[in-house]
């Protein structure tokens, strides 16, 4: 499903050039649950952003379902993302001004779905994440664990085949963290491909395999 060829990413500021990714070659098959680990600043999040088409690499190619995304326009990338990828962030990235329901509904609006269909989907997703009783609340009225469940509901509501999770338990206590990992595992069992960046060995243990990054290079695959 995911294939990268000699992927490199260089950030240039006025004074320094930082090589965040250095010739990364990676392949992830459909239905796999992959964890990416490594110390801070090793390029994990950069890799995840490129896999999510949120950023474009400086050189190399990234193929999603066999399609080369490297030269695509912003609008085509947006289309690709809408159909294929759901995101879960460490800091949840919910919109404070929208209710739980509206936050989850957002990607469906952008995909052009009718209102009645949206209602059914959102209700279903919230139920699945066990957060349906909080529909009308605003993010800041929820606990961290609840917010992350809303974020996962938002990522899964479009039934996209790929979920990218960036430290999904980073802001959660261990009980809530475990609950979130179970949810991800459950999604994986239902057929969703999951790529997760994490610091935690325990979280990584939920994955089928783990990739280790250091200084922008893959140093180990298990």
């Amino acid at each position, binding site marked *: 499903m995911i294939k990268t060829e000699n992927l490199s990413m260089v950030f240039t500021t006025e004074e320094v050039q930082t090589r965040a990714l250095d010739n990364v070659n990676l392949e992830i098959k459909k239905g796999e649950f992959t964890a990416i680990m490594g110390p801070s600043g090793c390029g994990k999040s950069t890799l995840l952003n490129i896999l999510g088409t*949120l950023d474009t690499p400086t050189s190399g190619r990234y193929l999603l379902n066999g399609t080369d995304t490297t030269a695509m326009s912003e609008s085509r990338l947006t289309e690709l993302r809408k159909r294929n990828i759901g995101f879960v962030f460490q800091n949840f990235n919910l919109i*404070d001004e929208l209710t739980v329901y509206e936050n989850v509904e957002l990607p469906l609006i952008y995909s052009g779905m009718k209102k009645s269909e949206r209602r059914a989907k959102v209700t279903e997703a919230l139920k699945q994440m066990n957060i349906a009783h909080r529909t009308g609340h605003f993010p800041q009225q929820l606990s961290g664990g609840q917010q992350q469940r809303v974020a996962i509901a938002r990522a899964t509501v479009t039934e996209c085949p790929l979920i990218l999770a960036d430290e999904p338990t980073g802001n959660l206590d261990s009980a809530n963290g475990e609950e979130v990992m179970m949810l991800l595992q459950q999604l994986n069992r239902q057929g969703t491909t999951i790529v997760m960046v994490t610091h935690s060995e325990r979280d990584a243990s939920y994955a089928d395999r783990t990739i280790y990054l250091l200084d922008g290079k893959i140093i180990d695959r298990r």
Partner: protein
Amino acid sequence: MNYLSQIIKGLRTRKSLTLLNVSGLAVCIGAALLILLYVRFELSFDNFHDDGDRIYRAESRLYEGDVLTDNWATTTFGHGPVMSRTIPGIENFVRVTAQDREQEVTYADRQFIETAYCYTEPSFFEMFNIPIISGNSTGQLAGPNTAVITRRAATRYFGKSNPIGKVLTFKTPASEQHFEVTGIIGDMPRNSHLRYDFLLSYSTIPEARRDIWFIHGVYTYLKLAPGWNPDDIETAFARISPDYRTAALQHKDWKIELIPLRQIHLTPRKSYEKETKGNRVVVNILMAMAAALLLIGWVNALNLTVARSLERSREFGLHKVFGASRRSIITRGLLESALLNLLALTVAAGLLELLLPPAVSWTGTDFTAGMFESPAMPAAVGVIFVAGVLFVGLYPSIMQTRIKPSDFMRGQLLNSRKGTTLRRTLTVAQFIASFVFISGTLIVIRQVDHMQNSTSADAFRRILIIRHPSSTDNMDSRVSDFKKRLGQQASVKGVSVSGAVPGIEVANYFTNRPFGSDISEVKLMQMFAVDHDYFDIYRPEFICGRDFSENHGNELNKVVINEEAARMLGYDNTEDALGQQIAMEVLKEPLEVIGVVRNYHQQSPAVPFKPIIFFIKERVPIIATPYISIMADTEITPEFIDGIERVYKTYFPNAAFSYFRLTDYQNEIYKSDRNFSRIFICASVLAVFVACLGLWIMTLFSTMARVREIGIRKVLGAGKFRLFGLLTRELALLIMISTAIGAPLSAILMGRWLESYAFHISLPWQAFLTAFIAIAGIALLTVLRRVCKVIAGKPMRILRNE
């Protein structure tokens, strides 16, 4: 001092923002002060007389039933002495004659045409605060043929020599008088409605005419005794007036109205009023404009200060953590605001210094005269400063005292919605003001155009007016020969001698009625003395009948009337007036109507149509014909004028040659209207500019606050157009609200202004639509770059930079 250095440091860290803030505020304050200076001048008219609050001008009002038929600024010569004798409460009075004839004034070889003269009584100096600077301080103007003149006039005629005892000769086409200069006064202030260079003794007027009741030829000023009310005098006059009514006024109610001296300048123009008038509605609109400009400036400064304090929340949070009290936070906020306002005021003063000279020459009025003597301006500056300090400083500092230090420290305030309602409200206020300014500008421009177009014809460009020469031997035949001689020149298309020209009030009200009808049918109408050529030159549109023609033999008993005169004489159908006979008060024989012209604007569309009767000037020689109109074949060149002067001098070697172009005179009529439109244009440009500055700042901060949200939405697949809509939706809503409030507001304000003109355009909807499009367009352009930049960003970079 510690505060101050902190504040200065704070202002210096974001220099460009501080610069923006100070300059925006300075421009608004400068413009507001400029407008206020003009307003102060308009409101300061006649405020320099001692006991001015007890001085009134008595003005005649004639009614038929409840209908006000005649509204004059003058009274008869008889009013003053009789009222002062019979009505209690009048402490003093003075009469000032209201003639409009130019006089040719001569001393030795110096000769000028003068209009700024009047005949008046010794009490002039008791009523008005116009001190005599040379000559006896009492008894001036008591004897006949004496004059008191201004210093300016004295210099004009006598140079450096002593004017006292010298004799000036005053000549009109019909008379010659000599006046001994007995006193000198300073030039009359610019903010005086009385602006004379020559005060001639009233006792020079022949005794038989001094106190007559059948000519409304003088302005009568009354000084009431303390404790008396103008109503008392008005009521008392209504009681005695039947005893003094002339035959012509028997069927009318004759009243007077006492206009307070200080309000004369701003009351609407009436018949027989010569001076430049102000307009109360304009003054009110200008004051509102100044207030709006100040508000726009303050709103910007406030928005910026709020945004800045949110941006610096961590710093403020630290102050609170280390124990800054509520009082010290507010003091600091106010001090910062005071510094900002002081800087802006200083820059505004500089701007004013730069702008005043062009503004004065632009308006043609030195409205800065006396600005340093009056306490009004320093007071206004003080009020503006204090109000500005509170407006800009109070809210942000109170807001800071209410926020918990922990909120500050998290630095989340910029993202929060705190104060956005206020900021939105203020932005709406700015846009309302801009809307009113833009639509107002368009309306004023259209009205001024409308007035100019409806009183001026293209042919008027080719008309030169010269003044009728003063009295000489064989005057009539000389003028006639002069006309003929000019008519023979190829460059001259036509010549006419008349009592008025378009733009100049005809006045000369005489009573007329259908011949044979009851005396109660008389109507006051303006008598317009013309010659056979007048209609050839000015070509008013004839509805029916014909103009005067030498081919029809003797036309002395024939008249042409306008629609309004036909209506007043009782001919609803203008055709019915043809062939009818009219009885005019000073003539025994009837006058026959041979033509009716369509109503046209003799003066300006500011005044209603008046009844006019055109007659051949020789028929009533007492009515003056001061103007000779000369129509050039192509255009008026200096050579053309030189040619006319040469011919003039051969016929009238001793007369002064004085001329004006008709279009110049007409432009002068609309001077104050044009000034108003210019002020409007400048204020609009300024308001829109500063409001956009504010909008730009608001967008800067609001997009900054929404960067994270935009990032999330992009990650979730929002398209560019959708994001653009999201970011500009609020702006669109604000503009809609501004239009919804601004349009009716502008309609009310400008409607009131338009109503001060007898003839005006109806409120043009296009002006409102244009204002809406302009504001929406300019606002969009202002925010476009910022919004596009946010939208074009890579989603993850947006989130990372957040």
